[in-house]
């Protein structure tokens, strides 16, 4: 059996009485691609916030391999090997696409280590530019990219950063069908090289990438299984009643 890359044990957060995530336990195996589903407000983003250190948990623990990283500072969690893409794409808008990736390629994050000139990882950056399809835009300032391109650039930042675990929060939000398809190709390309957790609403996209799905509901794990398991699961159907259904 594969090793657990990320172990989440009874994780929860209490926002002054409101438990946005409530006792979630998950084991993500090395190299797995796990999809998180759930209606709006189910706590998917909050769960990622808890894993990546943005929000401090009030209960439970998070392990990266054997290291307890619960409530570490964000940059330490990042250095330990967890990368994250935000629901609203965030890149360095005033830097060129290449510069963005160069910054992400920086292996030693300290100030004093970076008082030299030039980023050494040119080959890696070129490779990522190809992978995310922005090679022609390499010298453009990121602010001028389209929404889809910005999303891909942020994915590129993550790929360049090369963390063990990648958290993707709605990587296809606001994308056209063609863009969504391209994104699924990029994500599929990462499969095996990284352990990936994806939050996604778009079922077409989910079918293209998913192996295992975890469904969150009201801050708790409602179900876990393969795509077909989840689509036929009565509890999931019920939870989605009222909203537009899982389709």
């Amino acid at each position, binding site marked *: 059996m594969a090793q657990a890359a990320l172990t989440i044990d009874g994780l929860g957060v209490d926002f002054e009485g409101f438990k946005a995530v409530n006792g979630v336990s998950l084991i993500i195996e090395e190299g797995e691609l796990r999809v998180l589903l759930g209606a709006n407000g189910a706590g998917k983003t909050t769960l990622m916030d808890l894993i990546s250190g943005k929000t401090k948990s009030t209960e439970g623990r998070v392990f990266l391999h054997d290291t307890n990283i619960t409530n570490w500072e964000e940059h330490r969690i990042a250095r330990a090997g967890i990368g994250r893409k935000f629901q609203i794409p*965030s890149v360095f808008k005033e830097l060129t696409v290449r510069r963005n990736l160069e910054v992400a390629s920086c292996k030693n994050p300290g100030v004093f280590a970076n008082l030299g000139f030039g980023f050494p990882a040119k080959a890696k950056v070129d490779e990522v530019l190809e992978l995310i399809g922005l090679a022609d835009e390499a010298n453009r300032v990121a602010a001028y990219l389209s929404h889809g391109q910005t999303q891909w650039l942020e994915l590129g930042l993550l790929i360049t950063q090369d963390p063990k675990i990648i958290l993707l929060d709605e990587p296809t939000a606001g994308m056209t069908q063609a863009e969504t398809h391209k994104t699924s190709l990029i994500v599929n390309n990462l499969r095996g090289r990284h352990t990936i957790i994806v939050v996604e609403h778009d079922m077409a996209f989910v079918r293209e990438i998913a192996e295992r799905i975890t469904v969150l509901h009201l801050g708790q794990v409602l179900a876990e299984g393969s795509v077909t398991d989840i689509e036929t699961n009565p509890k999931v159907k019920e939870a989605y009643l009222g909203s537009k259904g899982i389709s």
Partner: protein
Amino acid sequence: MSSQRRIDWAIYAGFVILIMLVPLVMDPFWLNRIAKYLVFGMLGIAVALSWGYAGILNLGQGLFFGAGAYMLAMSLKLASATSLQQGSDRPVPDFMLWNAEPGAKTELCCITKASFLWLPFQSQWFGFAMGLILPVLMAVVVGLIVFRKRISGVFVSIIMLALVLLVRLVMIDAQPVTNGFNGLTDLGWFKIGDFEFDPYIVPTYYLIAGSLSVVLLAARLLIDTRAGVILQAVRNDENRARYLGFDVPAYQTFFFAVSAAIAGFAGMLYVIVSEFASPTFMDLSFSITMVVWAAVGGRASILGACIGAIAINMISATVSETEGFAEAWKAIIGLIFVLVVLYLPRGIAGLAHDLIDRVVARKTPRASPVLRVHDATSQLAE
């Protein structure tokens, strides 16, 4: 190197050559004045680094300037003939003698309650070193607290503003050690070896111009380092940088401290050419004036901010000699500031860059640090 960068460096070199040629055409009186403006140019660099590059609008940069100034001034005060009154061979600042309790021992150790603080300043190089160390120390302490707590934007500005006013008050209040709002006057000359830097001689001008050139080029190199690029990334999106593993407060604090060191150095140079240090260095209006220089010159450009400071001061000096125009000039500066903020967010340097870009006719827009865009969406990114 891209043609844009080559032009950039050529302009820097041109500026350095230009300030080196000034003594050929100026008399000693003007040379001394220009030297002061060059010092202000150095302050412009300090502001550009922290505001334009680190995104920290420091409304209390005068704190670091003043700290540097006082540290060296204390040493130069002790080196002054006025501190060796009554035939003593142990220096005691004259104002301490005037204020001494009757019967107090007229020694630096104990003439007033805290006068012993002056003891190590008998060495000029101690004062000089402290002129760099103290501003850096203050910046690091403030930086670590403020940036670790993720206090940002306007709150940092206000904290620094409050801090400079507080220190100014303390300096005025601690009259027995600091000579209050009279400041430190009648200073001796700065010395390197046996050479004395009389503020009205050409070598003193070159001391200032040389220092400015070194600081200018060093600052320019600094922002071209990886750390400089990462700093710009941090300014663009702190969170993104954090989740890439960068210790954001460390970057902010480092550049804040470098900016403080430059301001402290400028303070010392100012003391060398003006022969006084005074609490007015920590007036709010002075700190704000520095920001105006940098804004007009272009805070996103090290050289732009530097030239902005020098140019505004030169024009001010010329204009205010015209009778009755001095007050109007202040209003004009205010107006220019407003216009620049509204229509030229990257200042005159930004305008120059755009013109050069157009001439070079580059196809793609270049990365240039512009106004910190308060893009609510990216700031609040989940």
